[in-house]
């Protein structure tokens, strides 16, 4: 049991040591890759300054607003489409096409119309996150047990109540998975909007550090590490939610049973 956490921690430390070794001995020159100690020192210096936290706030803000809009619109539109066969069949190809269009294609247009602003980032985030989430909502609601639906009908549950008390809980495993996928997309597009679109945030700070020349490379890697940590936080939050919120659901029971079987 102890080995199961000792080993990963050891690997991370070994990887950091390897990074330091390779850069200090000059296998990889300082013009290409900064040393680990310099990067971590830069990270520490930034963590005590306001600049890092400001950029984190900007990136998270567009992520959060975009996700809120995506989830709200996705739930309402997705449920409406899922309950009507004709509407579903009509809209499905359109959703597939929009999902296949890379969101960065519209980035230059968004920059022109909205400028390097929060609104531009939020628009891009929504464009990237909405379609995959919408598909999950539709699948979730459509895979609902017909008996549950009939029971709800027999009990006279309809409208908003059916939406809140029947549709959402039944579809929730799909919804949380959809949110996790959407959230990863949202973070990626936030960073892209900052690198290419010049909006405030982590992505812009990475590019500024790169442009500042070799001396600022440790800073660049410090911000790359920060973006990875943000990814961990954002994805990890939904991963935990999947387990905590869904503990009663069949799919999670099976996973737990499988895990128990694997351990014993």
């Amino acid at each position: 049991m102890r080995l199961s956490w000792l080993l990963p921690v050891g690997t991370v430390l070994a990887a950091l040591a390897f990074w330091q070794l390779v850069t200090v001995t000059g296998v990889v020159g300082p013009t290409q890759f900064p040393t680990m100690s310099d990067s971590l020192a830069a990270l520490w210096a930034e963590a005590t300054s306001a600049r890092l936290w400001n950029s984190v706030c900007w990136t998270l803000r567009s992520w959060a607003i975009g996700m809120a809009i995506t989830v709200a619109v996705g739930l309402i539109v997705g449920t409406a489409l899922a309950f009507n066969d004709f509407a579903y069949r009509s809209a499905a190809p359109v959703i597939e096409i929009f999902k296949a269009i890379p969101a960065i294609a519209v980035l230059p247009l968004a920059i022109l119309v909205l400028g390097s602003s929060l609104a531009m980032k939020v628009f891009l985030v929504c464009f990237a996150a909405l379609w995959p989430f919408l598909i999950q909502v539709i699948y979730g609601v459509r895979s609902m047990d017909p008996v549950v639906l009939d029971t709800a009908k027999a009990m006279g549950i309809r409208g908003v109540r059916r939406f809140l008390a029947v549709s959402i809980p039944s579809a929730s495993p799909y919804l949380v998975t959809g949110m996790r996928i959407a959230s990863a997309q949202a973070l990626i597009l936030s960073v892209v909007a900052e690198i290419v679109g010049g909006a405030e945030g982590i992505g812009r700070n990475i590019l500024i550090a790169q442009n500042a020349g070799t001396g600022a490379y440790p800073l660049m890697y410090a911000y790359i590490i920060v973006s990875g940590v943000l990814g961990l936080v954002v994805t990890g939050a939904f991963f935990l939610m999947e387990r905590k919120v869904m503990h009663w659901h069949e799919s999670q029971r099976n996973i737990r049973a499988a895990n128990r079987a694997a351990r014993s």
Partner: protein
Amino acid sequence: MTGTTTDVTSEVAAPRRRSGRTGPLRGLARLATSLWLPVALLAVWWLVTDTSTSPFFPPLRDILAETWNQWVVFGEWTHAVASLKNLLFGYLAGTVVGVVGGSLLWRLRQVRVAVNPLIYFLYVLPAPALLPAMIALFGIGQMRQIALIALGVIWPTLLNTLDGMRGIDVVKFDTAKALRLGGWRTYRTLVLPGAAPQITAGLRASLAVGIVLMVVSEMVAARSGIGYFILQAQAEFAILKMWTGILVLALIGTALNYLFMLAERVVLHWHVKSRALAGS
């Protein structure tokens, strides 16, 4: 790591409710239902922008005419070829590493536990953030773009390969052992096909990541490619030209997606069939 990657079940066809009609009429009706909305939306776009004087939203007719001019007559299609070449090399390199790496990690349990945090970190790290680092490492050129695409593409494929292989029924391995299939043959005839649906889901996720990285890498410090074309047009305030780039990129994204689905249907036809059997 189970459950952290793409959900296979959600990617394939949605559960369908039975419709009453049968025969050729039904097929025709189905085709009509799936086509009318895209056609209607295009018509609305055409009509609404037809008399548009807004600098940002030129008439669709002009966009289409300009697309023909720019990409065929003026020969800008070379940008598309440059982009697709980078994508192809990066995607191939990344997915091969992903499948092989995933298989190795599946075999070597200790290594898997050990490198788990590193792989997960690289998986959740927003790949475009690595672009400036790639510029520093490889300078400006094709190599940097291919490297960035490959680096982003590896992780979805690798994690899905691993998940798929770990999800194979243990009984099947006992059967393989009883049949004395041996390591390599078990891998080829049981493990790879067994994990194929989830590997495919990973490959599709990787393709989406690859397309994004292809464009992003062309938008910063590059001299060719669709991303460069679009951003250059935007910088020159050549809105119509920019729209043609957006249109071509959207077409390429959609076409690649459909090509993938086609290939998936050919390769995984047995899987779809067995699912249909199980469902009936």
